[in-house]
């Protein structure tokens, strides 16, 4: 389908829809009428609401400092108690608690027999095993010492490795590049080059080096051809 067909289809699809841009490259989104004219006013209204809310949520000075005293005063008034007295511990009186103390003197929880006789041994064993575990962890993961004179060795080692990798990568790239360049040269160009620049001994050398790989056809010259050549070249 061609671009012209696409545009024609686009126009057909959107025919009759209001506010659609004629050019398909324009943004397809539309907004209500006068939206941008009213946008600034809407934003300012919301900003003023937020700042009014922030101003309204304040407390008087020293409110939290005196809050607990106000609560205690209210409790005293409601329940006819005296809580704020500095010797409250002696005068505190909750009728319910007094009744409860007659029935409940302990929590009801019990322990296994002779538990407390063995507890101190258990605790000492726990201390010894914790110390052992910490020592083992120290050996496995030695704590770094504050003296950091040896860190330059680490940096130097990292730099050597980075340089070595860089040099290796560079030479790899170079040889790959050379092979890629060589592969891009057409074979007949190479043959022409070799024919033009090679010396008489090269053919024999190549045959010896690439024995069986290069099939060198031995040229068939007659004796007359050889004599003619010798006459002209010498």
């Amino acid at each position, binding site marked *: 389908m061609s671009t012209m067909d696409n545009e024609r289809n686009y126009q057909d699809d959107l025919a009759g829809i209001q506010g659609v841009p004629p050019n398909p490259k324009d943004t397809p989104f539309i907004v209500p009428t006068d939206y941008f004219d009213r946008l600034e006013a809407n934003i300012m209204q919301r900003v003023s609401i937020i700042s009014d809310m922030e101003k309204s949520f304040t407390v008087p000075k020293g409110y939290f400092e005196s809050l*607990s*005293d106000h*609560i*205690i005063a209210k*409790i005293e008034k409601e*329940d006819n*108690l005296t*809580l704020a007295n500095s010797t*409250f*511990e002696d005068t505190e009186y*909750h009728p*319910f*608690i007094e009744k*409860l103390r007659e*029935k*409940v003197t*302990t*929590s*009801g*929880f*019990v*322990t*296994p027999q002779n*538990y*407390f006789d063995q*507890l*101190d041994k*258990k*605790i*000492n064993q*726990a*201390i010894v095993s*914790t110390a052992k575990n910490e020592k083992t962890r120290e050996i496995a993961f030695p704590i770094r010492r504050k003296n950091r004179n040896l860190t330059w060795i680490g940096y130097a080692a990292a730099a050597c490795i980075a340089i070595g990798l860089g040099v290796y990568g560079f030479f790899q790239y170079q040889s790959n590049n050379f092979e890629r360049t060589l592969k891009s040269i057409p074979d007949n160009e190479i043959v022409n080059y070799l024919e033009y620049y090679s010396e008489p001994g090269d053919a024999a050398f190549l045959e010896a080096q690439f024995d069986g790989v290069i099939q060198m056809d031995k040229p068939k010259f007659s004796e007359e051809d050889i004599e003619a050549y010798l006459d002209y070249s010498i």
Partner: protein
Amino acid sequence: MEDSIIIEKFSNERTRNEAFNLLLKKYQQRIYWHVRRLVVDHDDADDLVQDIFVKVWKNLENFRADAQLYTWLYRIATNECITFLNKKKQYQSISLDDDSASYLSDTLTTSSYFNGNQAQLKLQQALLTLPEKQRLVFNMKYFDDLKYDEISEILGTSVGALKASYHLAVKKIEQFFSDND
């Protein structure tokens, strides 16, 4: 033995073990019951008490005498219990916003290390419905008989807030008893 003598002996390496054993003899039961009332289960309390005293062993030499030794011990114990209970809530997929300890009520009823009477059981059940702080304050006031100043040092809360907290706890427990009579 005075706490100051225990601390002095602990600072000397030769008498450190002796000092620590004296500290254990003096405070292990108090710390255990404080922990037990919070976590309910004996095995959990046993593990926590050991962890708490291992922490005490590691940190006692750094203890500054600007606070009482037992309030320092209580503070460590309370913090360890709160950490443990929060982990338990997470393990049981209970929201950390749920401040009550109602998830411990099964442990209370099925535990073989609870032989309280009806009133004791009801009180423990009532305490499990309270928010953590109110439960702490009530336990320390009612069972440990600590003063508000001491509780304030342990929890880092003002005396006024503690008084209000204790009073609210008592009201809620009273309501629980009348609802479940």
